[in-house]
């Protein structure tokens, strides 16, 4: 199949491109980028050769967005999400690829689970799925999973996400061993002895609400440890869901002295603060928790200056039964795949990020950190493409989510800009455009 996207604004920071360019896709690969590429089979759409010409006038064509941190819940928690519904949600949110965390049941700590995830994802045929295998067996923090075998099975990275690796030596060995395999380790940095029992950020708000707090130091002390371990072992570490000004400062300083540390944050951390919890809405219960205004501003600034490399949703679907309970008892997490781009575009509208910078945070850097293809539209690369309509106004309606779960605090929030077409390997897997194939 041949696809020609004409008259769009092509934004590809990996080639320093931002301008009106056509893009020709052939056999699942980017074949050519140029001005005014003639239709391979004359002027008509769906001509004899099978070439499809799509008019991208007024739209933006970017390398496919990659969400490097999601929870797809399968195997084990299919009532919250399945790989199929998660992939549907991903492409509807503009993502051509996702990395899914290992805290399933059974845990993705062995080849068979990794292969199962890949098989399910292939059967669905929507977004690419990069399974993240656990660092330790059964997420127990004691014995390393078989990194080599998991890599061969198709795991893209290692993480005990959902739980920290509290034992410093285990984390050191994980960083060293993964580094020798050129595999990333994604750290859920949390000191559980400091966060124990907490359900929200520890602040004046938690004091006023009488909810047990999670101090910023619970995150920061563990990030400090991870940075020091990466520095000492000369391995690299990726810090998941950064939320505090102190964490940002630690990462910024570490990068300045040459430590190979990368970091991500999630849209809710640069959109909301703990002030939003005043009505005990359990959709706002996330781990790490929503922080203060000063923290939110530090996260925004870190995204702007590149201290935080990537935006990842930490898509954490939960059924109503996990959330419609007392705040103390509710599960942590919110869905994010279908709101992540809209919320990040708000930073573009506010002038905090340029559009190319958004593409770097949501495509280029995630691909680099995970060492996976994507993040570029260079000729010869996989044709993973997201088409954006920056002027499309829409309102979050969780009822229309493709995700199996609805746990979002952004219901009814107005948004400007969304993905209108998602192409994976040259195949259109999601479209809102009328003339799309």
């Amino acid at each position: 199949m041949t696809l020609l996207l004409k008259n769009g604004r092509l934004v590809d920071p990996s080639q320093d491109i931002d301008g009106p360019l056509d893009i020709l896709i052939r056999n699942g690969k980017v074949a050519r980028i140029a001005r005014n590429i003639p239709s391979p089979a004359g002027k008509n759409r769906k001509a004899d050769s099978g070439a499809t010409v799509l008019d991208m006038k007024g739209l933006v064509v970017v390398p496919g967005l990659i969400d490097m941190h999601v929870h797809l819940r399968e195997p084990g928690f299919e009532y919250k999400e399945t790989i199929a519904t998660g992939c549907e949600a991903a492409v509807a949110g503009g993502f051509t690829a996702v990395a899914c965390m290992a805290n399933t049941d059974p845990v993705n700590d062995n080849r068979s689970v990794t292969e199962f995830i890949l098989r399910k994802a292939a059967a669905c045929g929507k977004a690419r799925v990069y399974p993240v295998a656990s660092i330790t067996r059964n997420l127990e923090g004691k014995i390393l999973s078989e990194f080599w075998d998991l890599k061969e099975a198709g795991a893209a990275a290692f993480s005990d996400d959902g739980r920290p690796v509290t034992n410093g030596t285990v984390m050191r060995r994980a960083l060293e061993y993964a580094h020798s395999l050129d595999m990333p380790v994604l750290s859920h940095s949390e000191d559980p002895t400091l966060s124990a029992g907490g359900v929200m950020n520890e602040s004046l708000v938690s004091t006023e609400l009488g909810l047990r707090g999670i101090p910023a130091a619970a995150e920061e002390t563990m990030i400090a440890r991870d940075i020091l371990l990466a520095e000492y072992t000369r391995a690299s570490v990726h810090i998941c869901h950064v939320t505090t000004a102190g964490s940002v400062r630690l990462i910024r300083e570490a990068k300045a002295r040459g430590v190979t540390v990368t970091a991500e944050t999630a849209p809710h951390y640069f959109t909301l603060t703990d002030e939003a919890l005043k009505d005990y809405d359990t959709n706002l219960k996330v781990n790490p928790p929503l922080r203060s205004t000063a923290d939110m501003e530090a996260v925004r600034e870190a995204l702007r200056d590149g201290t935080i490399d990537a935006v990842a949703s930490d898509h954490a679907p939960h059924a109503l039964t996990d959330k419609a309970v007392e705040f103390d008892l509710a599960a942590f997490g919110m869905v994010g795949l279908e709101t992540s781009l809209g919320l990040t575009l708000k930073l573009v509208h506010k002038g905090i990020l340029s559009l190319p910078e958004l593409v770097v945070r949501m495509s280029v850097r995630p691909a680099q950190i995970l060492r996976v293809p994507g993040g570029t539209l260079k000729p010869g690369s996989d044709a993973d493409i997201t088409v954006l309509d920056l002027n499309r106004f829409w309102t979050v309606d969780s009822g229309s989510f493709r995700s199996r779960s609805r746990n979002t605090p952004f219901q009814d929030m107005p948004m400007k800009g969304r993905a209108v077409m998602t192409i994976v390997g040259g195949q259109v897997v999601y479209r809102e455009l009328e003339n799309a194939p």
Partner: protein
Amino acid sequence: MILQKKDILGIKDLPVEEIAIILDTAESFVEVSSREIKKVPTLRGKTIINLFYEASTRTRTSFEIAGKRLSADTINISASTSSVVKGETLIDTAKNLEAMNPDVIVIRHSASGAPHMLARMVRQSVINAGDGSNEHPTQALLDLMTIRAKKGTITGLKVAIVGDIAHSRVARSNIYGLQKMGAQVTVAGPATMMPRDIEGMGVEVRTSLEEAVSGVDVIMMLRIQLERQQQNFFPSLREYAQHYCLSRRHLDLAGPDVLVMHPGPINRGVEIAPEIADGPSSVILEQVTNGVAVRMALLYLLTGGKQ
């Protein structure tokens, strides 16, 4: 003389005028409790459910007596947290209770915000009888009533609240209530028991009991949960008592006619020296009496009763 909201969830969102209405109404009910026949027909035919997820004989009994003195039918449900383990959620319980069509649901729960959740789910009026570490509004109202009765006014008074501020819903509700009524509040206790950024609530913070009580008109001592010692909030009961047990020398530092209050039950010799708890400054038993009157007032006002 009606309240704007259908529920009493906290003092935080209760306007000053409504607090005044509640206190005035409560005072008018004190007389009922001193009659020989302690019963008026005001709430005849009304049903009040006391839904207690946390054991509290005192508060539950106080609500029960309040309802009975107004001739309401009161039903007690002790839903231990084991029912949560069994799978019955608060939502299930709420729907069942609503179907039985009571007039008021009184809820005590160990999770902050649980009454707010219940209030959103049911048509009936909900009264928060204490939720987690959040609020205990009826306790604060009875405390305000007691202070007003003894001092004539609350405006301009200096009040010290002492003990485990971090885990105390009584402290939070009283901070809101006292400040709304024009009092100055100082909180005191070990630093480990001071919640984060409490200064942001407009209170003075002290770690010394001596400093906290100097020149104050009211001293409110909070109950210490003895198991906090295992959690390292203080090193030992002995050390805590040496520094935070209210005794004669503290009363000498306080203002003349200082009131000593405690929400009960008291750990004698830990929070308050026995002779102070039973001494002339103590209004601890008046608090209990006023508790019934305040709860009668709330039940009466929420059911839209007319006198």
